[in-house]
């Protein structure tokens, strides 16, 4: 048995997992409409690459990833694109975001699939591009694009691959049932991952000891593969990435670092299944296993649900009793969030739909003053001081919140769970976190604005200076000109101008002589042209040449005429 380490804190809420494990994974009929959000993952939302009215086949790409940290999205079934618009999506805010609505044609017809059976002879780069194109994002809850996680760069050699099968949150059994039924494919997926990461020396499947059947299902497939199934005592929240790394390796991930920095890659077990389907069968991620549970539904079981299926569709097929239900929660009771609308669709990260009765999960009691009992500090799995954070959060003391490492809080809800005063601690932390992020953004913006303002100020001063310099230069030049000019009066200037015009005018005799010269030179030109023409006629040149020469002669004669006329005018 491999050594495991014990994380600080943690709680043991009632597990409530058995209800949904009585039946195998089921399927639901295709709903009337599928609503596929463009942002289902961490990073930039995908960009739609289909138009309204397009006909799509199951598995056809309908949105391209936008940039590196993003994931493609595929049609979950065949049908027609009936809307591309903002719809409420699975988000704590209950806000709307861009979605693609598909009206299924009922045929559920796949595109042509081509997989790679022999992945061991395929380069990791080619496999990564398959994973990127299959739109796979972490299916444990955060939804980080898997291909990005698997490509940490050459500087960081990966020696440990951890597969997260912890599933520590109550009620959720999606991973558990997936392992029980499809262990072989999961192991295949892990082998693909190991090949991509250059065969790390440690491959560990971390699983809590409350899933003995799943452990039993994995064991025959892991024999002689170098893959270790490590089970450890059940405690919430062991499934957090940092917690699991510590439990399995004893290494604590420093604040602000990612697992790859200490040579670890941690992947959810559902993701490994999706990777196997994508690589070996060529199937993109269009469905996932989701737990449908809670006392308000008569049937509690796991379903292989198409991405984009409205929650209401799932509820209907499980005999949902709206009167009994306190609220519908996406995710588990600890970290999930209440849905504002039942039309919200299932996305790649939805591992559970919980419809509890009022007795099962009562409404939040009103918070009472903190009595400083310190139970939150005992429960915190990250060894923070929840009570101090609570005070600083109320006082909006951002500096102290940060110095008390608010951003290391994983929002697991253990502190709120144990709080005897029902203080919604996590909500305080989340609110403070978003306040701090906003303040930081504003700081950056105001620094930019200051820089631009100062630059503009400088530019305007510069321009003003240049203008001033030009003005000064002009003034100087004017003064200089005044100095050099002779101090003559206006009368002198007029006299000088008259003298200049007089100098330009010619006497009549000169004029006559000039015209005479013009007449004689014109006569000369006529004579020359006549000579040329005669010579050409004598040597029997072509007609064209003769024509040109005679034209030149007549031109010269005309000019002579004109010169003679002008001379006659002048003499008169």
């Amino acid at each position: 048995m491999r050594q495991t380490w014990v994380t600080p804190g943690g709680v043991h809420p009632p597990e409530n997992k058995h209800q949904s494990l009585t039946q195998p994974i089921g399927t639901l009929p295709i709903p009337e409409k599928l609503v596929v959000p463009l942002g289902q993952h961490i990073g930039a939302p995908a960009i739609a690459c289909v138009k309204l009215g397009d006909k799509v086949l199951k598995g056809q790409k309908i949105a391209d990833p936008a940039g590196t940290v993003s994931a493609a999205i595929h049609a979950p079934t065949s049908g027609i694109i009936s809307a591309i618009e903002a719809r409420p999506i699975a988000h704590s805010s209950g806000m709307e975001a861009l979605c693609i609505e598909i009206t299924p044609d009922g045929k559920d017809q796949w595109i042509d699939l081509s997989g790679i059976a022999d992945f061991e002879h395929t380069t990791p780069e080619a496999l990564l591009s398959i994973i990127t194109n299959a739109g796979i994002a972490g299916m444990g809850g955060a939804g980080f694009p898997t291909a990005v996680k698997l490509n940490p760069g050459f500087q960081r050699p990966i020696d440990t691959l951890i597969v997260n099968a912890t599933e520590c949150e109550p009620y959720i059994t999606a991973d558990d049932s997936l392992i029980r039924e499809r262990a072989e494919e999961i192991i295949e997926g892990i082998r693909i991952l190991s090949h991509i990461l250059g065969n790390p020396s440690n491959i560990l499947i971390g699983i809590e000891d409350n899933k003995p059947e799943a452990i039993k299902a994995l064991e025959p497939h892991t024999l002689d593969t170098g893959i270790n199934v490590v089970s450890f005592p059940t405690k919430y929240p062991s499934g957090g990435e940092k917690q699991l790394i510590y439990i399995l390796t004893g290494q604590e991930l420093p604040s602000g670092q990612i697992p790859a920095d200490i040579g670890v890659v941690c992947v959810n077990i559902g993701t490994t299944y999706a990777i196997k389907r994508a690589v070996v069968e060529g199937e993109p991620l269009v469905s996932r296993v989701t737990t449908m549970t809670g006392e308000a539904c008569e049937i509690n079981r796991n379903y292989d649900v198409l991405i984009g299926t409205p929650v209401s569709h799932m509820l209907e097929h499980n005999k949902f009793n709206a009167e009994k239900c306190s609220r519908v929660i996406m995710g588990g009771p600890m970290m999930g969030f209440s849905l504002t609308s039942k039309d919200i669709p299932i996305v790649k990260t939805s591992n559970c739909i919980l419809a509890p009765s009022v007795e099962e999960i009562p409404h939040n009691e009103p918070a009472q003053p903190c009595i400083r009992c310190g139970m939150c500090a005992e429960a915190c799995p990250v060894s923070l001081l929840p009570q101090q954070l609570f005070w600083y959060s109320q006082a909006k003391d951002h500096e102290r919140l940060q110095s008390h490492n608010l951003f290391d809080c994983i929002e697991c809800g253990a502190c709120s769970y144990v709080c005897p005063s029902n203080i919604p601690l996590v909500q305080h932390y989340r609110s403070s976190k978003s306040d701090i992020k906003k303040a930081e953004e504003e700081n950056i913006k105001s620094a930019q604005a200051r820089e631009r303002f100062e630059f503009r100020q400088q530019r305007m001063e510069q321009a003003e200076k240049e203008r001033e310099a030009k003005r000064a230069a002009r003034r100087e030049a004017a003064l200089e000109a005044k100095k050099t000019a002779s101090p003559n009066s206006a009368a002198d200037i007029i006299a000088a101008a008259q003298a200049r015009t007089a100098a330009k005018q010619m006497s009549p005799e000169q004029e006559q002589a000039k015209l005479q010269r013009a007449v004689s030179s014109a006569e000369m030109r006529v004579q020359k042209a006549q000579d040329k023409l005669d010579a050409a006629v004598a040597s029997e040149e072509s007609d064209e040449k003769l024509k040109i020469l005679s034209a030149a002669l007549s031109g010269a004669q005309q000019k002579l005429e004109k010169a003679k006329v002008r001379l006659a005018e002048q003499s008169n």
Partner: protein
Amino acid sequence: MLEFIFQNPIISALIALAGLGLIFGALLGFAAEKFKIEGDPVIDQIDSLLPQTQCGQCGFPGCRPYAESIAEGDAINKCPPGGQSTINAIANLLDVPAPELDQEHGEEADVKTVAYIREDECIGCTKCIQACPVDAILGAAKLMHTVIADECTGCDLCVEPCPVDCIDMLPVATGINQWQWPAPPTVNGLIATDRTHGSSSHGGAV
């Protein structure tokens, strides 16, 4: 030397004191030159707390002039874009009581705005470009102008000079990425007998 000291103790003590005075004086003078601080550091600190919209609502041509004025003792509640949080921060820095915002200079806006030019109506007069304190408007004479939304501080200064009134101040678009977790209600003033079952918020699942 020693003989002189013994014979004239008073004079030698005076000489020694004067000598020491000269040495330390020179040292201090050197330090004052060497470690001189350019400008007033308080102005920089105040300036960094102001929102840098450069809107002039305080009556000064920009945030820095107002910071200079505050350093000289002006009121700290003249900045509507910064609002109460900025007033509190400056009060904290200067260790003075934080007054309410002076309504004479404007009211604190609930939502941030950004200028938007209706481009069809723009005649290309460049007046708004000259008015923008942060060079966030792009365009040239007789050509359409547009606002670089990311650089716009929402100061309003471009609206007034526009001869065809084609500039609107629109609220900044808020999407899911800008959404903020609301703070839960504070528990002050609540006593156990005030409890009302099941009527509280339906917020996060706990």
